[in-house]
């Protein structure tokens, strides 16, 4: 169990520090005005909104992550995150038939698998302050992978309809007719995550590690946590995409092995 979970992070910037950091927002708005980008209002609104959202979430998390409260409260929060993720996915990929239920199953099963490994094998201690952030990172990435994989599958089967029907016309069952196209779609959806895993640390320092280092944790300890998180995300993303692919492909074919009409959203 990493030592950092027994330690107290001492680095905080305080309210004055936070207020001072707003100087950078002023700089961004000033550049927008100077360059006549007309983005200054958006920059200001985005910054205020982000701050309010984070403060609100921080307040709620303060209650949920209180060590005196039962860890079940954190798991309840995780369930809520899964539901919100599914609803967000529906908003982002409305052209995918039955996406809400599918997203619930995919994100939920990926969270169950990933968190089950992390806590079941005691890689992290099961406490509110580990359950919620780890679930957040896993579910956030799974959400993106669900949207990416489902959109790619619909696009691929729609664009390659002629090939799919040529396979069906040879008497192939729908899983066989869809397999090459689903495989292509999954590769396209998963490769960015795999690529970013390859170059992690070389170009940009990942968020969890950065946060821990800023909070005063030794870099090596931060790296251990980050690596575990990265593997969690990689496994979660692959699991989500696979569940989505299986469930979605099934929905895109009728029981008598016909490809349904697919309507893709423009743009």
């Amino acid at each position, binding site marked *: 169990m990493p030592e950092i979970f027994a330690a107290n992070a001492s680095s905080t910037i305080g309210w004055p520090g936070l207020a001072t950091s707003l100087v950078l927002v002023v700089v961004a708005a000033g550049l927008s005005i100077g360059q006549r980008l007309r983005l200054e209002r958006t920059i200001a609104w985005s910054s205020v909104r982000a701050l309010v959202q984070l403060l609100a979430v921080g307040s709620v998390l303060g209650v949920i992550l209180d060590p005196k409260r039962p860890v079940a409260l954190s798991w309840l929060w995780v369930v809520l995150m899964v539901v919100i993720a599914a609803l967000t996915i529906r908003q982002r990929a409305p052209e995918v038939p039955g996406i809400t239920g599918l997203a619930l199953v995919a994100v939920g099963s990926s969270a169950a698998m990933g968190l089950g490994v992390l806590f079941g094998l005691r890689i992290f201690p099961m406490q509110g302050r580990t359950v919620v952030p780890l679930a957040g990172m896993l579910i956030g990435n799974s959400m993106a992978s669900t949207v990416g994989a489902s959109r790619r599958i619909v696009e691929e089967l729609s664009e390659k309809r*002629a090939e799919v029907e040529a396979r069906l*016309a040879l*008497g192939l*069952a729908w899983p066989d007719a869809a397999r090459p196209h689903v495989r292509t779609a999954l590769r396209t959806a998963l490769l960015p995550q795999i690529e970013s895993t390859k170059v992690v640390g070389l170009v940009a320092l990942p968020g969890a590690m950065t946060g821990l280092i800023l909070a005063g944790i030794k870099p090596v300890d931060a790296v251990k946590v980050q690596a575990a998180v990265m593997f969690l995300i990689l496994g979660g993303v692959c699991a989500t995409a696979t569940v989505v692919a299986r469930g979605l492909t099934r929905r895109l074919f009728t029981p008598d092995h016909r490809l349904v009409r697919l309507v893709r959203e423009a743009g």
Partner: protein
Amino acid sequence: MPAPLFELDHLAVTTDDGSRILDVEHLAVPEQGITVLAGPSGAGKSTLLRLCNRLEVPSSGTIRYRGTDIDQLDPLALRRAVGMVFQRPTLFGGTVRDNLAVASPTADDATFAGALERAGLSGSFLNRVGDDLSGGEAQRACLARTLLTEPQVLLMDEPTSSLDPAMTERLEGSVRALADDGVSVIWVSHDLDQVRRISDRVIVIDHGRIVPEAAAVRWLCGPTDSSPPLPVEAAPPVLEDDSSRRGGGADA
């Protein structure tokens, strides 16, 4: 009396917005030879063809294959018995051999070469990459791929529409040989000259309906392959079954 190859009754296909794209009271397609579904573009010919191997299903009505409602048949077995060649040659990635293996994974090269020969290609095409084939070669490779499922019926959906005259003639010759070997063929075409060349019998469709016999004859005897206006009305099917006309003009 044996059941027809396909028999359609009270059949309708409507789109999601409610417009009717096919409306057939009764149609019987007999066994043997080449039956051409003729008519102008957008008449509903391809939809009718796709109903025969259940790539489409009707909104209402029944389709029987050799006397059995196709709803009662295993769709995968039906599709292997009723092969289809599409308008555009659709080869999968890889070589011709890879394509043929999709239809028959356990077959050997000799079987593949035999299928290619029946489709008018030599066995030397096995190692050719699909993307390198001409349109005519690709379409014949698609025909060979379909033949590997040993179909009793071939559905040809305007298979020569993107081919030059020489390639068209070769493909027509290959299919005629298959028909003479006992494979029943249903061929969709809007090309009057082609209809005259290949048909043993003709069914004319327009606006989703079987055209009455007199109007069908007028259409088939037209001087060009342009699409003259055809009367659209509920009508008995036009179904000529005169094998003596094989290869020689329409049933006019």
